[in-house]
Structures are given as structure tokens and as C-alpha cells.
């Protein structure tokens, strides 16, 4: 017969390959073979494990003060040293990682979901396009950190406000990304075919346009994850983020700032946490982009 399978050829529109489930395994294999994805995944995984298993790793209360051991430099007893209250920095960095990574994850997920919804609605219901996107433009015209600063200031300095503020700040970019690919997807034949089959606009939007438009957003979300960790640190450093005594990488650094010259280790280790997380997530995102975007194939 002439009906041979076409095999694994790159078929279908360029914006679509992300979720084709059977091809997922292929993508996964390509991802796992991707060097920067490997490095990024290992870094992120290591930090995640450290954060999740923090209580097992240290067994010390992150808020426990031992005034006798103030400002101890890194040693065998305190691998990362202690701070001005004699709290163990290693413990605080591990627990701070829980807070910082959690904020990053939640912000990436929430802003991704909201961005996807807004983007696909704007693309599908053309009357809503201009109002929604102008609103997004308005949000984007503020620097993200200033916007987040304003919102946390208004909502009060709590972890929830940091999450809400950063989500609001990062939604517009996601919405734009999804809208752009949804505008391409909605013109494809299979969307017209669904319309001919009698599917409603809403059904077409969720079943046909959305799943084929989110590939670029997934890549974007890994970067939002990294930016959120940095932004949380900045907000906490400025004093409107996560409040002490709850440790976050940002507020450990903020607290250590006054003693930076005498006790460099207080700021160094949370700073390293932030750097490694941002680096890992960026590498991860690069790998994801290389694999998902056929135009860049071989570039990584």
C-alpha cells in the first residue's frame, strides 16, 4: 500500500509541537540530550531537593537564635556561618529557598495561566482584543519591579502580596506571547474544520487553539520563574517582601547588608542560591526553547 506512515517528520505548524502527546516522548528525549537543559535541570533539581528536604538536612529551627554564636564564619559546626542573632545561615538559606522557589513557581504558574487565558481570548474574540491588549500595554509600561513595589506597598508586605504583585507584573508578557501564536493557530485549517464540524467559539478556543498556542509560553514561564526569584529578592531587600523572621533569600541578604564587611557569608550564600536558581532556570528555558522552536534547531 501507499499508506506508509510518514514517521517522525516535522509536520504541522511550527507553533504546535509542544503537546502532541505521542511526540512528547521524542521531545523529552531531545530535551534530555540537550546540554544546557541537562545542566539547568540538575541545578534546579538540586535546589528543589534541598528546599523540600530542608528539615531533614539541617534539623535546626531556622529562627533559633544562639546569641553566643553570633557572626561565626563558616566552619564545621556552621558550614555557612551564622548571622547577627547566631542563626545558622545554612538552615536559613535552605528554608529561604523554600519560600523563594515557591514564590517563583507560583508566580510562573499563575501568570502563565492568566496570560494564556487573556491571550487566547484576545485572539479568539476580536472585539475584546483592543481593550485587553491596551490594558496589558498599560501594565507593561511600568517597569515590572516598580509595579510590584507599588502593589506590595498597597497590599501590605506579605508573601501573598508578593505573589499577587509579581503575577500582575508578568501577566502581560505571557498574554502577548499566547495571543501572537493563537492568532496564527486560529487561521489554520483544523480550526476552520472544527467550525465546520459545528463546534462553538468557546470550544474551539479551549480545545483547538489554546493547546496549540502554549509552546512559547512554557519557555517564557521558565524565565518568569527566574525573574520572580530575583524580583522577590529585590522586594524583600527593599523591605516590602517576605517579612522576617520568615527567611527568604531576599530578606536574608537584606538583614546581612549592615554587616556585609564583617560577615560576608551572611549575604554570600543566599546570593549564591539566587544566582544558581536563576542560572539553572535560564539554562532550562534555553534548552526548552531550542527543542520546541524548530527555527532554532541546532543552534543550542
Amino acid at each position: 500500500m501507499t499508506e506508509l506512515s510518514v514517521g517522525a517528520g516535522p509536520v504541522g505548524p511550527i507553533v504546535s509541537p509542544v503537546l502532541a502527546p505521542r511526540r512528547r516522548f521524542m521531545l523529552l528525549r531531545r530535551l534530555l540530550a540537550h546540554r544546557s537543559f541537562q545542566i539547568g535541570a540538575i541545578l534546579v533539581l538540586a535546589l528543589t531537593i534541598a528546599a523540600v528536604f530542608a528539615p531533614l538536612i539541617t534539623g535546626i529551627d531556622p529562627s533559633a537564635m544562639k546569641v553566643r554564636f553570633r557572626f561565626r564564619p563558616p566552619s564545621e559546626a556552621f558550614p555557612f556561618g551564622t548571622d547577627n542573632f547566631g542563626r545558622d545561615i545554612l538552615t536559613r538559606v535552605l528554608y529561604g529557598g523554600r519560600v523563594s522557589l515557591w514564590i517563583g513557581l507560583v508566580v510562573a504558574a499563575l501568570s502563565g495561566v492568566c496570560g494564556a487565558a487573556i491571550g487566547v481570548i484576545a485572539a479568539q474574540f476580536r472585539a475584546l482584543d483592543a481593550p485587553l491588549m491596551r490594558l496589558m500595554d498599560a501594565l507593561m509600561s511600568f517597569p515590572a519591579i516598580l509595579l510590584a513595589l507599588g502593589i506590595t506597598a498597597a497590599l501590605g508586605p506579605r508573601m501573598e502580596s508578593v505573589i499577587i504583585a509579581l503575577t500582575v507584573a508578568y501577566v502581560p508578557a505571557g498574554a502577548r506571547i499566547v495571543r501572537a501564536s493563537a492568532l496564527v493557530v486560529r487561521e489554520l485549517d483544523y480550526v476552520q474544520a472544527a467550525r465546520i464540524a459545528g463546534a462553538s467559539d468557546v470550544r474551539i478556543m479551549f480545545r483547538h487553539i489554546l493547546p496549540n498556542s502554549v509552546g512559547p509560553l512554557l519557555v517564557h514561564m521558565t524565565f518568569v520563574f527566574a525573574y520572580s526569584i530575583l524580583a522577590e529578592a529585590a522586594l524583600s531587600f527593599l523591605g516590602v517582601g517576605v517579612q522576617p523572621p520568615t527567611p527568604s533569600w531576599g530578606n536574608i541578604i537584606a538583614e546581612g547588608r549592615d554587616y556585609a564587611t564583617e560577615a560576608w557569608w551572611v549575604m554570600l550564600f543566599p546570593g549564591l542560591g539566587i544566582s544558581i536558581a536563576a542560572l539553572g532556570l535560564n539554562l532550562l528555558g534555553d534548552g526548552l526553547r531550542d527543542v520546541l522552536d524548530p527555527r532554532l534547531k541546532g543552534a543550542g
Partner: protein
Amino acid sequence: MTPAPLVSIDDLTVQFRTDRGWTTAVEGVSFDIGEGDCLGVVGESGSGKSVTALSMLRLHARGTSRFASGVVRYAGKDLLRAPEGDLRAIRGRDIAMVFQDPMSSLNPVLTICDQISETLRLHQGMSRAAARGRAIELLDLVRIADAARRVDEYPHRLSGGMRQRVMIAIAIACRPRLLIADEPTTALDVTIQAQILELLRDLRAELGMAVMLISHDLGVIAEFAKRVIVMYAGRVVEDAPVDVLFRRPVHPYTEGLMASMPSLEGDAAKLYSIPGRIPDPDEAIAGCRFGPRCAHAEPICRAAMPELVAIEENHRVRCAPRSRPGGAG
């Protein structure tokens, strides 16, 4: 004693918004499709074949297109003015459609089963399991080998011919009364083309549905259709039974099309082509729009757009000199 037609298109005029205002893509198109009919629509690119077909289901984007005139009558409703909900119920259930490019007509993230089931579940409220069973039956019906296994695959695993079969399976899932096939074989290679045409022909007989086959390929039309409508520059120029059209074409454009078909007897190296090109929809042409390309043009052709006139039963022509009583035949 002619029964009421299944779909009746009357004076359909479709316009699209462009930078220079509204452009007319299809003007004054009228024809009927009877129950179980086998209609071919032929014409060059840009002649308005697809626009006509999409208008029948009102699938053009709102806002950038409009119906300046016309009625599409189906089951006592005017499809051009029916509420969107009524149309959704008709699309896919009563009137279905197959497109040209099977490579892009299937959603890459859904299995074949999901995509066939969608129509069944939308229109017949079938359960997931029942729809799956029916999907396998349908794949069998469109002659896909090993249907029970293929049904769970994703489109990228199928060849173009198989995908077109899947598209046909989706189209006939609810046993439509009219299947519109818009260049269904153009993107396929020749052996597959023949198989798909044969499949369509058999399904038409089996399911008793009417088929409207749109093609620019006269060979495909000759092989498939019983009645042919020839379109040129957004208008119907000739409408005749297939044997009449191929034996005695009346309109000079149809004549030109016939002459430009390669034949086994003729000199294959010298293929006839109609001089000139199809005019832009905006181009101002006095009288008959084929006039500037026509070797038989007369002064009367420039005077006014000729009417579509019945020169005998079941044979209509839009050509002023040749539709005169006793005119050149």
C-alpha cells in the same frame, strides 16, 4: 414534478473588505443542489468556487465579509441569516466539508479518535465509548486498514492520503445530506487522488448524500460529477450535465478549458492556454467579464453583463451571442 432541492442558492453576492473598500468576490451566483446530487464546480483559482462553498455555511470572518445579496435555502431556513446556533447545528450534521490540505486539517494534539468523536458527541450526544466504537466503524468505512489501532494515533503518524480519509470520516460521521469537498485531492499524488475519488463516489452511493466537488481539474470533475457548474471571475458561466458539457461546451470559456486539457491524441508538446488572465475583482470591465480574453467577442458582449440563460433543459449559459435563440452553438 421536480422535488424541492436540498440546498438552493439564489443570487448570492459575497464581498470582502479591502483597503480600497468592498471587493466583490462572488456575484449573482444561483444554483440548486438536489437530494443525492453529484455536482462538480470547476474554475480557475480566484473564480469564487471556495468562497461560494464557505458562504453556504457562513464560514467567512464576520466584519471583513458581507453578503450583499442572496439567499441560501436549506430545510426552510435562509442560512445566510439564520442564528449562529442554528448554523452550528447544521454544520457537521447536515452539511459537512472536506478541505484541500489534509496535512493541516487535523489538530496535531488530538488523536484521530478525539477528532472523529468531536462531531459525534457535539451533534448526537454520544458517550465517549460509543463515539469511539463509531469512530472505528467510520475508519473502516473510509478503508483505513487496522482501524482499531489507527484510531488512537496522532495525525503526524498518518500519510496525506490517510489523513484525507480521516477528514472524510469526520465529515460523514453524522451522515450529512450534503458533503462539500473543496479540492479534496489537489494536495495528494495521483494514485491516491483516484482512490479518494473512488471512495467519495462509493460513500455517496452508500450513504445517499449529495456531494459538491470543487476542483480546478477538469479530469477530476469529468470522472466524478454528473452535473458541472463552471465559474469564472465570481460568476457561474455555464451549468450543464457532465456529458453535455464535455461534448458540446457552449461558453467560450468552457471551450477554452476543454481545449487546454491535455489529451492522449493531441500533440502533448503544444498545450492550448486561454490568452490573458482572470481579472482582479476590482478591475472595471464593461459587459462580459470574459470579454477581453474571448476570441468570439462581439459588440453586444461589451454592452452589458450577459444573463445566465437556459438554452435547453438543465443547461444554462452566460454568453450573450451564444444564448440568443438560434445563436452559434
